[in-house]
């Protein structure tokens, strides 16, 4: 499907795009591009047993960018006429301080993406509204059936169908069709005035049938209900330094916060990251190998190409504990003289490209997950998390557990209330002493925020032991 994207989809001719690129490409401009995007987003949501909200949003526009040295000029427009393109081009090249259009750029060669990681029929990507409504109704019934203490179920199903085309001054014209969907379920359990919440969900660049495969949606409903019920009996979390065992999958958010953001090239070019100048240095124990891989089929964080038209790849960030590389976009790769990794991403045509993660995960190790738990005398076992955040410059990161247990004498025992875990990015992975052989990727629920821009991402982790981390509970 990806190879069918033509500029005509946006009502623009190749000649018009070429003129706009010519207009952008003044003497001091090193690179320029046009990013055309059309997006249809749909959402249905349910609460109190009723699917009572449905919405649809349509947007289309172009982002026009010129780069001169470290400077970026950027303009965008939701009108796609020749005149609007020219105005945007003139605005974007303002930063170059030179008169307009004194050279012609190569005519972009229409290129096809070399693969399609998410071949989803449009009808499947944008399922009929009654089908979505039925899906949510089944989820509500399943969660309530799980336990009568489940008093409310909130569920939403969102799809996005995005068509993009990128025309660049370095001679590329390439398009992609990027379907994306997500199912999210939150249950509230109530017993004797104690109310608790549990959440679960999943998705990816998949069609609607994916949610019904082996009744995946019902499994998600039971998980959300289970977490809410479990939290009814949770005790206050401990406070202080202790060993932590992370379950596989979504707890990989640790890597995203502790390591991933700090290895985005922009922060390192500006030398504002706690990881600046650490390439080739040890930043993790030798059982840790971490990659960012945008090429996994159907995954939420995957892309055939990034938003600059570069094919995504698999970048080794940390190899056996040693920092190997950064993730880059065109601007930062060029200024730093390092490899282009296909991580130039943007939320929409209205935002600038930044180096961003795709699917970030640690490769499997050799330990038996049960042995990992058994090795802890007193500590915390965390299975699910809400969100996390990092201060790039000092490296301090947090991530907040939503399902966790005490480990006592090598056994998983009492569930504890959510608590925030805090650590130092360049240091925390040096404390990883065991890595399980059970690598799991998350279900496809992650959204990463940076500079006010949200993009879908994935994470993954095998069961992992960190010898010590600060746990922010209330019990000393």
């Amino acid at each position, binding site marked *: 499907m990806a190879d069918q994207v033509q500029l005509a989809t946006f009502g623009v001719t190749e000649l018009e795009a070429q003129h706009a690129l010519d207009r952008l490409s003044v003497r001091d401009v090193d690179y320029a591009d046009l990013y055309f995007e059309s997006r249809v987003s749909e959402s249905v949501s349910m609460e109190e047993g009723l699917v009572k909200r*449905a919405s649809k*949003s349509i947007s289309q526009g172009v982002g026009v960018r010129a780069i001169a040295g470290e400077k970026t000029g*950027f303009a965008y427009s939701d009108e796609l006429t020749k005149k609007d393109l020219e105005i945007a081009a003139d605005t974007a090249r*303002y930063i170059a301080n030179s008169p307009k259009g004194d050279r012609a750029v190569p005519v972009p060669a229409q290129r096809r993406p070399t693969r399609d990681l998410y071949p989803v029929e449009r009808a499947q990507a944008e399922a009929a509204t009654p089908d979505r409504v039925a899906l949510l109704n089944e989820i509500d019934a399943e969660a309530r059936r799980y336990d009568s203490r489940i008093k409310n179920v909130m569920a939403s199903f969102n799809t996005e169908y995005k068509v993009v085309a990128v025309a660049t001054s370095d001679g590329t014209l390439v398009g992609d069709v990027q379907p994306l969907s997500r199912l999210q379920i939150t249950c509230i359990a109530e017993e004797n005035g104690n109310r*608790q919440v549990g959440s679960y969900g999943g998705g990816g660049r998949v069609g609607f049938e994916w949610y019904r495969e082996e009744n995946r949606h019902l499994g998600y409903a039971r998980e959300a209900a289970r977490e809410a019920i479990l939290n009814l009996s949770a005790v206050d979390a401990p406070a202080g330094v202790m060993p932590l065992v992370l379950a596989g999958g979504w707890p990989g958010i640790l890597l995203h916060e502790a390591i991933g953001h700090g290895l985005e090239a922009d922060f390192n070019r500006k030398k504002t990251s706690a990881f600046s100048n650490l390439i080739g240095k040890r930043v993790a124990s030798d059982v840790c190998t971490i990659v960012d891989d945008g090429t996994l089929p159907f995954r939420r964080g995957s892309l055939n190409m990034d938003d600059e038209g570069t094919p995504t790849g698999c970048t080794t960030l940390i190899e056996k504990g040693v920092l190997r590389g950064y993730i880059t976009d065109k601007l930062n790769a060029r200024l730093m003289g390092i490899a282009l990794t296909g991580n130039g991403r943007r939320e929409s045509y209205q935002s600038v490209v930044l180096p961003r993660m795709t699917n970030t995960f640690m490769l499997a190790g050799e330990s038996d997950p049960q042995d990992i738990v058994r090795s802890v005398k007193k500590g915390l076992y965390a299975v699910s998390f809400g969100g996390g955040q990092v201060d790039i410059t000092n490296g301090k990161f947090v991530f907040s557990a939503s399902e966790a247990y005490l480990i006592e004498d090598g056994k998983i025992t009492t569930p504890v209330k959510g608590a925030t875990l805090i650590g130092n990015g360049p240091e925390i992975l040096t404390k990883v002493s065991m890595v399980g052989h059970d690598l799991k990727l998350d279900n496809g629920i992650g959204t990463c925020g940076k500079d006010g821009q949200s993009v879908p991402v994935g994470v993954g982790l095998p069961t992992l032991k960190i010898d010590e981390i600060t746990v922010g509970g209330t019990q*000393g």
Partner: protein
Amino acid sequence: MLQKQTSIRSADAVNGTYNQLAADVLARAKDCGATEADIVVADGETFSLQVRVGAVDRLTKAREKRLGLRVFVGKRSATTSTSDFSRESLERLVSETCTLAKAVVEDPVSGLPDASQMAQDWPDLDLYDGTILSTETQIEWAKRGEAAAFAADSRVTNSEGAEFDSSSGRVVLANSHGFVGSYKSSSYSLSVSPIATEPETGAMQRDAWYEVQRKFSRLASAESIGQEAARRAVRRLGARKVATKRVPVVFDQETAGSLLANLCSAVSGYGLYKRASFLLDQLGQTIASNLITVYDDGRMAGGLGSRPFDGEGLATSKNTIVERGVLKSYLLDTYSGKKLGLSSTGNASRSVGESPSVGPTNFYLLPGVKSPQDIIGSVKEGLYVTDLIGFGINMVTGDYSRGACGFWIENGELTYPVEEITIAGNLKEMFKHIEMVGSDLVFRGRIASPTVKITEMMVAGN
């Protein structure tokens, strides 16, 4: 119906209103079977300029527009939005919206507010400034702000940049009761994010300072913003962990504002009727210490959260949310109000393309009499929090656990900076244990608080 609109649209664009467009779309919706409908049209211009280490780093400029439509077919409802105002697109949108609405179930509570409730007239709230700034002026502001940060302290060695943003726009809201309202607003802001380096260790700390105003002339000087940003970054140098212990915690204006934002979420109608708030069934009850009085005032002149009418066209007003610790009012729109058997408080918040939700206007804690110095001075050993990170707040239970940094207080004085610690408690208890409220209320956003002191929280570190 929309035939007319194409010819009218250019006239609309000239005088900057979308009233006729809105009327045409509403009429079309009626033809498609909608019993009620409302429409939001927003357009505006944005300019953003980033300078880094003395040179322009990024310049962004755009005009944008968006239309959002909500229809009711009986008691069924759907919402759509588009940036494409062409006749064909809008006709398709209207018909798709009605089709969508027919696909969801009836919700007995759904519907527009009563026609009698719509705002009749409203004052000019001084939200718009017609000042057009040249690109050069905006570059100059950002450069001066960043330069002031570098000049303030030799330990400021690097920068995430300074950003000057300006935007202006118009919102038109119209509904099938015949309500049509519109207002213009603008904002100007400068933020500076310097990085300080410890000379001995090379360890870096970043902080930032910013200001936002609806009028350009009210913006503080670029120099004062840059200097404050530098002071904040430099004072973090040498931060360390502290031992895990239970101590009094003083929140500065910024972090106290985040507590108030948590309170705001807890009293918002949607969380309440879904039973997803820790303040269920608490109207008339004591939920905070008697030092706590909170207002939500939609009519503050020039306020960053001010609006003459809310996202459903109801008049905004000044509401008492908490009075000396007693919860007096929730924040409600029509829907969440009906679910709770109450009237809207004029807090419908509407982003184009979504059905209304509830949002604060200018939501603030009434200042007390103590200076921040007095409050810090009252603490023998404790924590002064200046920054919080993470999302460790459970709105259903009130459980609270966040990453923090700030300063350790000993014998009433700030001693050394601290980081990589968490603070934890439960919001229900935290609000009841606010034992001092500062006199230093400043509006830096739509939610504002003076310095507050909480009797005791668990600080986790070493």
